C-alpha cells in the first residue's frame, strides 16, 4: 500500500521537476534562439515587445550580407578552419606522445618533470603576450597563421587528460607485447593509440572548440583583415555595422552555429573528457 502510494506519487513529482528544469534550460538557451530569430527578422521587428519568436516576414537578406562582398565570412571560415584543424591534429598527436612518455615509460625524474610541466599552467597568457609578440616578430611569424598554429600545438591540459587515460590502461597489455619483442614505439602506435581513440576524440573536440573560439590570441597576433579568423571577422563586422542589429545576429550565428553542431555530435565525448580530467585528477 505504502509502496503503491509512493510510486503513484512519483509520477506527478517527476513531471513537475522536469517542467521546472525545462524552464530553466530554456532560459539558458534563449540567447541562442533570440540570435537566430533576430537574424531572420526585419529591422523594425528587432526590439518589438512582447518578443516575436517567429518573424512575421522571415528574410535571409542579413545572412546573405554576412556571406557576400569583399568581407565575406567565407574567408574567415577558411582561416579559422585551417588554424583549428592543423592545430587540433598537431595538439592531439603531440599530447598523446608526451602523455605516453609521462605515464608508460619508467625513468628517473619523470614525476618531478611532470610537476614542473603542470606548473606552467599557472602562468597566465597575459604574461606571455608581450614576449611572444616580440619573439614572433623577430621570427617573422607575427601576423601569420603560424603565430596561432604553432603555440596551439602545445596544450598542457591535453597532455594531462590523455595521461589520465593512459594510466588507466592495465600494464599487462603492454607487458605481453614487450615479451613478443615490441618496442615502445610499436606499442604506442599499434596498441595504446587505438585503445585511446575515445580519449583522443575527446581532446580533439575540446581543443577544436577552443581554437575555433579563440579570440584573444588572434586579436594580439593578427592584423591583416584577410588573415582574420571568425571571432575577429565578427568583431570587425560589428564595428562596421553598429546599428544593423539583424546583420550582427546573422554574423553571430555564423560564428556559433558550427560550434552548436560540433556540440550536438560530440557532446558525449566532451562531457566524458571533462569529467575524467576533473574528478579523477
Amino acid at each position, binding site marked *: 500500500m505504502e509502496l503503491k502510494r509512493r510510486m503513484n506519487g512519483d509520477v506527478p513529482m517527476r513531471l513537475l521537476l522536469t517542467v521546472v528544469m525545462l524552464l530553466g534550460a530554456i532560459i539558458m538557451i534563449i540567447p541562442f534562439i533570440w540570435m537566430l530569430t533576430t537574424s531572420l527578422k526585419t529591422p523594425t521587428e528587432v526590439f518589438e515587445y512582447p518578443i516575436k519568436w517567429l518573424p512575421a516576414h522571415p528574410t535571409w537578406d542579413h545572412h546573405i550580407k554576412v556571406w557576400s562582398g569583399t568581407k565575406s565570412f567565407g574567408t574567415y571560415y577558411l582561416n579559422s578552419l585551417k588554424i583549428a584543424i592543423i592545430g587540433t591534429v598537431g595538439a592531439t598527436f603531440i599530447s598523446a606522445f608526451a602523455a605516453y612518455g609521462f605515464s608508460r615509460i619508467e625513468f628517473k625524474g619523470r614525476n618531478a618533470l611532470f610537476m614542473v610541466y603542470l606548473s606552467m599552467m599557472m602562468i597566465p597568457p597575459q604574461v606571455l603576450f608581450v614576449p611572444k609578440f616580440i619573439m614572433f616578430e623577430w621570427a617573422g611569424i607575427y601576423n601569420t597563421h603560424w603565430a596561432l598554429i604553432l603555440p596551439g600545438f602545445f596544450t598542457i591540459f591535453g597532455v594531462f587528460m590523455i595521461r589520465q587515460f593512459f594510466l588507466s590502461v592495465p600494464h599487462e597489455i603492454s607487458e605481453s607485447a614487450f615479451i613478443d619483442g615490441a618496442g615502445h614505439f610499436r606499442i604506442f602506435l599499434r596498441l595504446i593509440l587505438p585503445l585511446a581513440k575515445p580519449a583522443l576524440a575527446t581532446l580533439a573536440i575540446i581543443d577544436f572548440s577552443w581554437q575555433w573560439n579563440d579570440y*584573444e590570441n588572434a586579436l594580439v597576433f593578427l592584423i591583416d583583415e584577410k588573415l582574420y579568423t571568425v571571432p575577429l571577422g565578427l568583431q570587425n563586422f560589428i564595428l562596421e555595422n553598429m546599428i544593423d542589429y539583424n546583420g550582427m545576429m546573422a554574423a553571430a550565428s555564423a560564428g556559433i552555429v558550427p560550434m552548436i553542431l560540433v556540440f550536438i555530435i560530440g557532446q558525449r565525448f566532451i562531457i566524458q573528457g571533462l569529467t575524467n580530467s576533473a574528478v579523477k585528477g
Partner: protein
Amino acid sequence: MRTNWMRRQRLLGYVFIGPSMLGILVFFLIPAAYSFYLMFTNYKFMSPNVDFTGLDNINRLLHDDLFYKSLKNTIIFLLAVPVSVGLGFLVAVVLNEKLYLKKLLRGLYFMPYITSGVAVAFVWMLLFQPKQGPINGLLRSIGIDHPPGWLSTTTSSMYAIDIIWVWFMLGYNMIIYLAALQEVSPELMEAAKIDGARKSQVLRKIIWPLVSPTTFLLLVTGLIMSIKTFGIIQAITQGGPGNSTTILSLYVYQNAFRYYDMGYASTISWALFVIILLITAVQWIGQKKWVHY
C-alpha cells in the same frame, strides 16, 4: 646490463616527452623569463632605446589608481564563480533525481559552455540594450519602471558581465557535480531517507559535505580560469564605460597593445601571476583543512 636498460628507458622517455617539452620551453618558459626581464625595463614598442629602470614599474604600479580600480573590478568579476558553482550544484542535484528528458536537459544546460566564444557576447550586448532590449522590456512589463542600465552605466556594467559569466560557467560546474554525485553511494542516500531526514537536510548535511572536494576544485579552477579571461569584455565594452569593466587581464592587454607600454604591461601581468599563485597556495593549504573526505 641493468644500468644500460635504465639509461635506454630514460632516453626513450625524453624522446616521447621531447617535442612537448620543446614547445613548452619555446612558448612558455622563455617568454615567461623574457617577460620577467621586461618588468624591469621601460620597453615600448617602436621606440629604439630600452633602459633598465629597476623597480620603477613596480613603484608605478603601486601608485596607479587604475590598477587598484581594475583589481576591484576583477574581484567583482570573480564573484560570478561562487554563484555559478552554487547554481551548478543545485541544477546537478535536481538532474540527479528521477526526471524525464534527463539527457536533453543536461545538454541544454551545458550548451553555453562549449559553444560560446566572443560571438555570444554580442548577443548579450543586444539583450542588455537598456532602452529597447528584450531584458528590460520584460522587466518593464512586470512593473519595474526603471530597470538597470546593464552594460551602459558604470555602476551596473561589471554585474552585467557577471551575469554573462555565470550563464557561461554554470553548465561546466553542473557536469562536474553530476559526475561527483555518481560517486555518492546510493545506500547512503537511501539510508538517510529511511531515517526520516528531510530532503533539504540530506542535501545540507550529507551531500554537500560529500562533494566538498569537487566544490573546492571548481572554485579554484573557476577562479584561475576567469582571472585569465578578457575576451568577452574586450569585445563588448573594451573596459568601459569609464573603465568600469577594466579587469586586470584586460588592463594588461590595453597597456601592451593599445598604449604599447610593454614594460609596464609585463609588470601588471606578473601581478596577475601573483594572484594565481595565491589562489593555488590557498588550494594546497585549504585542501587539507576544509575538505571533508
